[in-house]
């Protein structure tokens, strides 16, 4: 494959393109409500109407407004059909020639769509994720070609530094710095790993990216591998994402067939292969050292850092580990330039962030917004606020490692620093909206239970501490706790945060700490009077006990 072949594929695709495209969302959300049946019926209806030459029915990835699925969009009519059933298909096809279809519609220019700024999701819902030609038509693999033929690995790293991209897995480590460290680490063998072990409750950004645009992740990984000098990549994806795994397998196979993975990519001396490793359902394997242990075939438990993976990672070799969304940003950065990317977002948080909007909110689904967008814009304008006339109480970000941002802070811009100041984190992008019916102690208990179940059991603070913290939260929620128990809980939160081995334990207390910070009254309202009085006062304050 040379550049000319790439352009030839694109031109062939464009020449064969039909006038009308019916895009059917075939991502997991819509699939669960019979998107497959809808697509089949649309194909049938098109054939019956004799429109095969004019209408293409294209299965695409996530079209973002997940709560209204299955979604079908007709272009260029710009009609977006929602909650489509197989029975709606003939009427949708009939409406292509004018008239109104007998299917519910929504405004494709509503705030939910208009306020989005797509880099990572640019191809999501547009390209057919099962066809590499579709990705190439959207200028796919052009960045890889340019990088391999116009840039040295050093240039690639420098451009990444200039772009200001930060890791989208949650911690926000500067990606360029990470690439530079791996590139400089001595070693004959290096690895690139894509962390697709997305496990936060309510988060489905990475799944959507993999299902909707797997080639962008492969291209991003290949560029990264060239930059750091790796020839082997792994995608660690959780087994609970069968569609993502299948799309990845198809994408890798197609990329190999087209010479975009394998030996001598684009007729350059650069070789790169990608293999898939499937997780076995442990949340902790999203932690980088546990993930690498799991890739190596060992029990997925974290180990102390340093040494960091950049120096000694997979099989003891320097390893670059980035998240799905981070890699998905990469092709656009090299195609459009680091300056372009650095111009988006805030001073310290560049680019965009994808969020999975879920919970008590009207429009649930995927959104991508520039960094620095106020939370209020996301939940009220794009999300449409709380359903059924409720009011928003808090927004949870960062999953079990994050915190709850109360409604009085809704004007906070979404960037790494601002969320950190409020005791939450950007996280990988789960955003759970809570309305005034939500009990914050229950929320804290839920996340603590999650961490307790997912603790690997290696270090004591996390293994035994989460059990005790959950026990105390349980007592509080069941109105069996006293102020003394609350003090014990806070003391444990501090201890587990400071002494745990890996990020799971270090951040497990965050949902509890953050709800305590902003909703302490809810905890206190559940406390029972202490039969022994406040510490140190003995029975003096309890005359009825003192006399017994």
């Amino acid at each position, binding site marked *: 494959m040379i550049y000319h072949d790439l352009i030839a594929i694109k031109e062939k695709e464009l020449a064969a393109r039909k006038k009308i495209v019916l895009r059917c969302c075939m991502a997991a959300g819509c699939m669960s409500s019979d998107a497959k049946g809808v697509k089949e019926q649309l194909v049938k209806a098109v054939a019956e109407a004799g429109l095969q030459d004019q209408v293409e029915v294209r299965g695409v990835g996530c079209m973002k407004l997940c709560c209204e699925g299955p979604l079908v969009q007709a272009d260029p009519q710009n009609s977006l059909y929602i909650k489509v059933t197989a029975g709606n298909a003939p009427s949708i096809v009939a409406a292509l020639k004018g008239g109104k279809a007998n299917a519910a519609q929504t405004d494709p220019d509503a705030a939910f769509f208009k306020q989005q700024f797509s880099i990572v999701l640019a191809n999501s819902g547009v390209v057919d994720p099962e066809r590499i030609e579709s990705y190439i038509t959207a200028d796919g693999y052009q960045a890889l070609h340019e990088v391999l033929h116009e840039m040295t690995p050093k240039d690639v790293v420098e451009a990444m530094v200039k772009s200001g991209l930060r890791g989208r897995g949650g911690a926000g480590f500067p990606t360029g710095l990470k690439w530079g460290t791996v590139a400089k680490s001595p070693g004959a063998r290096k690895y690139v790993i894509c962390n697709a072990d997305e496990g936060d409750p309510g988060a489905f950004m990475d799944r959507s990216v993999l299902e909707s645009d797997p080639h962008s992740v492969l291209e991003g990984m290949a560029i990264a591998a060239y930059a750091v000098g790796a020839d082997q990549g792994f995608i660690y994806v959780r087994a609970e994402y069968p569609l993502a795994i299948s799309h990845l397998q198809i994408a890798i196979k197609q990329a190999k067939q087209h010479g975009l993975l394998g030996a001598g990519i684009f007729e350059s001396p650069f070789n790169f292969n990608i293999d898939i490793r499937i997780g076995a359902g442990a949340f902790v394997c999203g932690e980088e050292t546990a993930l690498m242990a799991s890739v190596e075939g060992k*029990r997925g438990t974290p*180990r*102390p850092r340093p040494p960091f993976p950049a120096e000694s990672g997979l099989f003891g070799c320097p390893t670059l580990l980035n998240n799905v969304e981070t890699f998905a940003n990469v092709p656009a950065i090299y195609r459009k330039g680091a300056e372009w990317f650095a111009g988006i977002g805030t001073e310290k948080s560049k680019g965009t962030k994808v969020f999975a909007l879920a919970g008590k909110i009207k429009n649930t689904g995927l959104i991508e917004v520039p960094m620095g967008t106020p939370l209020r814009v996301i939940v009220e304008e794009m999300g449409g606020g709380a359903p059924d006339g409720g009011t928003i109480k808090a927004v949870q970000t960062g999953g079990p490692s994050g915190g709850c941002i109360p409604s009085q802070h809704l004007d906070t811009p979404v960037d790494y620093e601002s969320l950190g100041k409020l005791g939450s984190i950007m996280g990988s992008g789960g955003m759970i909206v809570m309305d005034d019916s939500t009990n914050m102690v229950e929320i804290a208990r839920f996340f603590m239970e999650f961490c307790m179940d*997912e603790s690997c059991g290696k270090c*004591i*603070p996390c293994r035994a501490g989460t*059990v005790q913290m959950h026990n105390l939260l349980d007592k509080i929620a069941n109105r069996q706790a006293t102020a003394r128990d609350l003090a*014990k809980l806070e003391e444990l939160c501090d201890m587990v945060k*400071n*002494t745990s081995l890996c990020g799971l334990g270090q951040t497990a207390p965050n949902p509890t700490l953050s709800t305590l910070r902003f909703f302490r009254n809810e905890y206190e309202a559940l406390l029972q009077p202490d039969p022994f009085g406040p510490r140190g006062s003995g029975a003096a304050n309890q005359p009825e006990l003192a006399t017994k």
Partner: protein
Amino acid sequence: MAAKTLTIDGKQISAEEGATVLQAATEAGIKIPTLCHLEGVYDVGACRLCIVEITGTPKLLPACTTKVAEGMEIKTQGGRLQKYRRMILELLFAERNHVCAVCVSNGHCELQTLAYSQGMEHVRYDYTFPKWGVDTTHRLFGMDHNRCILCTRCVRVCWHIEGAGTKNVAGRGGRSKIITDLNQPWGDSDSCTECGKCVMACPTGALFHKGLTTGEMEHDRDKLEFIVTAREKKQWVAAD
């Protein structure tokens, strides 16, 4: 090997490059409490008892896996370290069924000794009283999961000193368990070489030699009578 100079608890010391903070401290006579650490096998930094404060590092780091560096300033004692260590021990005692009074290791148990030395007077957390079994299927050794603190010393000696790979960890979180082979009774294990290294390594009474448990300490009172009868009646007969 180049030497590194560093300060531990205000004391200036030197240590070999590549040494851990724990090694440097031990050499300088500074005691840092440890539990999962075992001389002779690699460290995992799991028990978190040896956490120390290093100036300029926001996180507390385990002394056993942290390498010394030039000019490092380390604090091994102090308010919050002491408090955290005590809490870790309390968590351990509340986690499984540690009943010293009936334990084979009572009096020479590392967990017990640490609790004394760290000033753990009582356990403030609710005991969980989990139901764990005892595996006495092995000819020579027994494993009481109630007393296990999951330090994985046994696993490490089995894999890296004996090379048998019999012991391992299964399950996760509080349900983690030391297993033999693929979670079979120890007595059925094909890989166990009966070397006993795991028992040597165990810091508590979780792994023990058979015949030493309180239940097995039978008092043979009849024998006294037998001897007395022999002496007085000059007859070797059992008392009826």
